[in-house]
């Protein structure tokens, strides 16, 4: 039950590799926060600094109001679940879970009670006498989670705990961890590179890239109001489409993509005015593209003729890979629309949902 505060936390490896760059994050008490970002962006390093496994090069970390920069991991009142589970191979499951309590000199009967209780919650009671190597991936994962919660720490840290599981199990464990969070009511910090996991599990999400925090917000705010092109492209699946356009004025402000003229909605006119003659990125999500007969209620629309390259039916929906002028675009259509690949189709782009980004800074314009 604790708040975790990172103040200007940085990590340098070998004096010149900046893995984490002045990160400011406040994880509220009982919050489930997800660190997400592409490989190598410094998520694990950040988590390991919170755990105390990695020294902090600069900045301060507070757990429950206490400065922990120089506190060893075992005294930080945290528990961590690792990607490859990191169960002790030579110990039984019971001993794996009891190990931390034993080292903390809990009385024997108390340990037994705690371990059995925890095993009950995770339905691994039947496995307690076995060794990790005879367990399946999913079972090991449960044990790893069990080993973390048996100590009732203030803060749980997860480093890509589900990435070694198959897709179905991953969805199941995702829900279980969320449920566990509600039961335990403790602070959880969860690292993943999978934005679906981030969106479904996080109360708030920290989007990182190159060691920097790009945005910290609720899942829906990230989705609807990404602060820059990177966040916009990272959150959402399939990813947002980007078109490079030039801003022109002829009466109203417009975007020019080669010969295609894209009107800018009234509400964005003022913001775009300073960009006349410059390049901007237009972002449009695959779900904001419609077949003409399905585009009810779309007011600010642009109709474009596209060549269908690939059709991916998903059952409940269809992803269509299109070629539009010089651009490759993905549209996400309803399941009943199955155009032939190679054919030409007209599609309606909902411009009221457009995102615009500065081409130099990549920051959001509107």
């Amino acid at each position, binding site marked *: 039950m604790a708040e975790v505060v990172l103040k200007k936390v940085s990590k340098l490896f070998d004096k010149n590799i900046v893995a984490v760059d002045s990160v400011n994050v406040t994880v509220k008490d009982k919050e489930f926060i997800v660190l997400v970002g592409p490989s190598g962006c410094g998520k694990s390093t950040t988590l*390991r600094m919170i*755990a*105390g*496994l990695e020294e902090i090069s600069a900045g301060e970390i507070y757990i429950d109001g206490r400065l922990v920069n120089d506190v*060893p*991991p*075992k005294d930080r009142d*945290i*528990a*961590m679940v*690792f*990607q*490859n589970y*990191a*169960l*002790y*191979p*030579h110990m039984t499951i019971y001993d794996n879970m009891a*190990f*931390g309590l034993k*080292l*903390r000199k809990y009385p024997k009967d108390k340990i037994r009670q705690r371990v059995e209780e925890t095993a009950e919650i995770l339905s691994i009671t039947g496995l307690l006498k076995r060794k990790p190597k005879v367990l399946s991936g999913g079972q090991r994962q449960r044990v790893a989670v069990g*080993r973390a919660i048996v100590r009732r720490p203030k803060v749980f840290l997860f480093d890509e705990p589900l990435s070694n599981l198959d897709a179905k199990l991953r969805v199941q464990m995702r829900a279980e961890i969320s449920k566990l969070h509600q039961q335990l009511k403790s602070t959880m910090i969860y690292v993943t590179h999978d934005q679906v996991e981030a969106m479904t599990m996080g109360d708030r999400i920290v989007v990182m890239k190159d060691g920097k925090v790009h945005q910290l917000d609720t899942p829906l705010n990230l989705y609807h109001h990404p602060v820059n092109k990177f966040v916009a492209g990272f959150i959402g699946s399939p990813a947002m489409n980007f078109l490079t356009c030039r801003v022109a004025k002829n009466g109203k402000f417009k975007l020019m993509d080669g010969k295609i003229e894209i009107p800018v909605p009234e509400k964005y006119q003022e913001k775009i005015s300073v960009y006349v003659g410059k390049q901007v990125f237009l972002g449009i999500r695959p779900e904001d593209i419609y077949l003409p007969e399905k585009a009810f209620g779309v007011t600010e629309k642009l109709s474009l003729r596209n060549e269908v390259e690939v059709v991916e039916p998903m059952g409940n929906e269809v992803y269509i890979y299109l070629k539009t002028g010089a651009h490759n675009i993905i549209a996400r259509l309803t399941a009943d629309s199955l155009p032939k690949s190679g054919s030409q189709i007209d599609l309606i782009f909902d411009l009221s949902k457009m995102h615009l980004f500065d081409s130099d800074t990549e920051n959001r314009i509107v």
Partner: protein
Amino acid sequence: MTKRLLLYSALIIFAVFFFYPFLWMVVTTFRPEADIGALSILPARVTLENYIAVFRKIPILRAFFNSLLVSVSVTAGVLAFCSMAGYALSRLKFRGRNAIFFLILFTMMLPFQITLIPQYLLMVKFHWVNTYLALIIPFTMSAFGIILFRQHFLTIPQDLIDAARIDGCSEMHILFRILWPLSVPTLVTVGILTFMTIWNDVLWPIIVIRNQDLMTMPQLVTLFAVGGRAEGLLGLKLASATLLALPIVVAYSFFQRYFIESMATSGLKS
């Protein structure tokens, strides 16, 4: 079929060549001195007098216990200290770690003869000459052991160590409760090689031990057989040599599998 036959005959001939002298030695120790010239394996007359004489002339039992004490202590020391050093060199971050590692590697290239005299002088300065300390302490660290442990520990996932650290392990706990149980083959290899090297060593004991009661078995037997106290009696010499070989043969028959594995995995024969 003939190929196989040839192979087996060749192997048998070699085996006989290797084994015959040893067998002859053992058999001969049970012959009276007068019969020793015979090359046959079956003795005409059997006697225990050679052994009785050996036990009477030299404290060979005492020497056996000395050897055991020294070898076991050194082995225990090597396992403890080399694994600690190997752990530090593989998993702890500190300034100069690589420099230290290369220094240790470098010491492996120095022949023993170079350090022999300085080491002896050190023993004199410490007043350790003619004590067990001289036989034990200088050998409780070995570059070879450190390197073997370091290489093995590098193969253990860092996450396991991190998990233990979060669970509340101190560095010693991590080493002895997490890494040791996962390093049994390395422990056995280093243990056996160390034990055999120390058990068989003659040179160093001869340099630092003069008190007969502190002598190790190979030292005592060598001095006895070569040093004239056997009075030129071949039977006595052979009996003492047989007694010297006995513990190794017994140990080998028990730990044969580990012996072979450790020779193979370490990639060298000592």
